[in-house]
């Protein structure tokens, strides 16, 4: 994808010199070309995701851990407020990276889908079916010129009758199951770190510690990443003044929570963060 926008992407009815409409799919071309047009629209949506705070998910032996890096853009914000990880039904966690308003909209939809599954089948929904329904929903927004695609990647985690499950739904509507997933700014680094772990052998407690460590590491190493869309940069963690600009939100589902999706208890959270910082100092 070499030529991006540059003035030809402002309107749905403008072709660029190489015959592309960047905003919307409008179909005077062949089917192959159409699929390229859809891709372009979705690529822009992916950009919104890439510039947002990192979210990760880990699927381990006995449960799921979700973690989100909340880039705090004002000292006036109440710490611990503005949760980015939502609970769907009782046993499903949903973390988003990207446009947060889109994330709330999708959370509401996920809750409706879960409620409708319960109405029909009188059972908690398996994560596979929620992910499927959300994938269909998100994909629908890539079909029409009157709406824009969702600017979020969503990590869904749950423990259902088939065991722990983790899915990521992207702006195109495609979704895959994962053992470990990362979306947002620091995802490349996070994925590298995730690949080093033996996820199938960890307990959820260990996974919480790993998640915190990963955030600290990612923040440390990603100081090389240039300024993002929202015009703040990722910084070194051990810089105290700037530390307040980054809050870590972790939630878990597993044996210790009896299958419910809950925020990690305060003491475990503090322990994880402390251990992570200690590990980083040792590394230095």
């Amino acid at each position, binding site marked *: 994808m070499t030529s991006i926008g540059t003035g030809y992407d402002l309107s749905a009815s403008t072709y660029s010199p190489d015959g592309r409409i960047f905003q919307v799919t409008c179909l005077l071309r062949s089917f192959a070309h159409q699929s390229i047009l859809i891709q372009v629209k979705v690529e822009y949506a992916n950009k919104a995701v890439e510039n947002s705070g990192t979210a990760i998910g880990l699927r381990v032996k006995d449960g799921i851990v979700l973690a989100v890096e909340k880039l705090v853009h004002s000292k006036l914000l109440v710490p611990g407020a503005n949760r980015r990880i939502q609970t769907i039904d009782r046993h499903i966690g949903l973390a988003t990276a990207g446009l947060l308003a889109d994330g709330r909209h999708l959370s509401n939809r996920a809750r409706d889908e879960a409620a409708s599954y319960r*109405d*029909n*089948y*009188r*059972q908690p929904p*398996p994560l*596979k*079916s929620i992910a*499927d329904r959300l994938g269909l929903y998100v994909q629908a927004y890539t079909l029409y010129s009157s709406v824009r695609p969702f600017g979020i990647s969503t990590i869904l985690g749950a423990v259902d*009758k088939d065991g722990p499950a983790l899915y990521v739904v992207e702006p195109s509507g495609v979704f895959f199951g994962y053992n470990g997933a990362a979306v947002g700014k620091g995802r490349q680094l996070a994925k590298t770190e995730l690949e080093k772990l033996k996820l199938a052998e960890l307990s959820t407690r260990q996974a919480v510690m790993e998640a915190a460590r990963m955030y600290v590491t990612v923040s440390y190493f990603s100081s090389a990443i240039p300024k993002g869309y929202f015009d703040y940069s990722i910084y070194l963690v051990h810089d105290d003044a700037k530390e307040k600009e980054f809050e870590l939100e972790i939630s878990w589902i597993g044996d210790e929570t009896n299958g419910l999706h809950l925020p990690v208890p305060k003491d475990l959270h503090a322990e994880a963060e402390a251990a992570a910082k200690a590990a980083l100092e040792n590394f230095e």
Partner: protein
Amino acid sequence: MDHIDWNRLKTGEVNLGTSIMAVQFDGGVVIGADSRTTTGSYIANRVTDKLTHVHDRIYCCRSGSAADTQAVADIVHQGLQMYSQTAGEAPSVHHAASLFQRVCYENKDALSAGIIVAGWDKEVGPSVYNIPLGGGLFRQPWAIGGSGSTYVYGYCDATYKEGWGRDETVTFVKNTLALAMARDGSSGGVIRMCVITEDNVERLFVPGDELPKFWEGREVLGATALKNRAADKGVVPMAVEA
């Protein structure tokens, strides 16, 4: 207005006045039904099959209005096909029962349908769900339904035991249905049964002349009786004083 037709059958509508039942045993379920469909007092079909397939290992027994129960069973059949396609696995009996219950409850004013859902799934094994007229959902180890069931509650309560194998359960179902059919005018014909296990569904058939026989009744008043009574006693009428 002293008699309310609580069955709410329209004129000429076909009724599955019925005896149906389902019983769970260790390896599966046995379901059974009579075979009589009536329109008023005319037997419209004397060899009806009231045991309806909704999925590979899930069947339902239908009682009440024939049209209503067929329509509901069709809806659930389609719903379960969709489910197995999208979920990629066989639905559980609980799923099927929930779909039945949804339809029966939400349309309770318009429907006259008493359904027993039974089958085998890999989560729970065998199970039986009873969905009577109002649309409630009840899981039970054994369930009876239809107009003929009222006559056999006592027999079932007294006879049922847990821990039976396949053959004992089949005998229980056969006997119960035979008793119900003997007393209920809206039930009769043949006994159809299905044995649903993990491996397969086996259909059994008991023709009308091979039904289990119980007490058939005996004529008490009549000449023979009188003769016997006089013969056996040496009973002398009391002397009347002059």
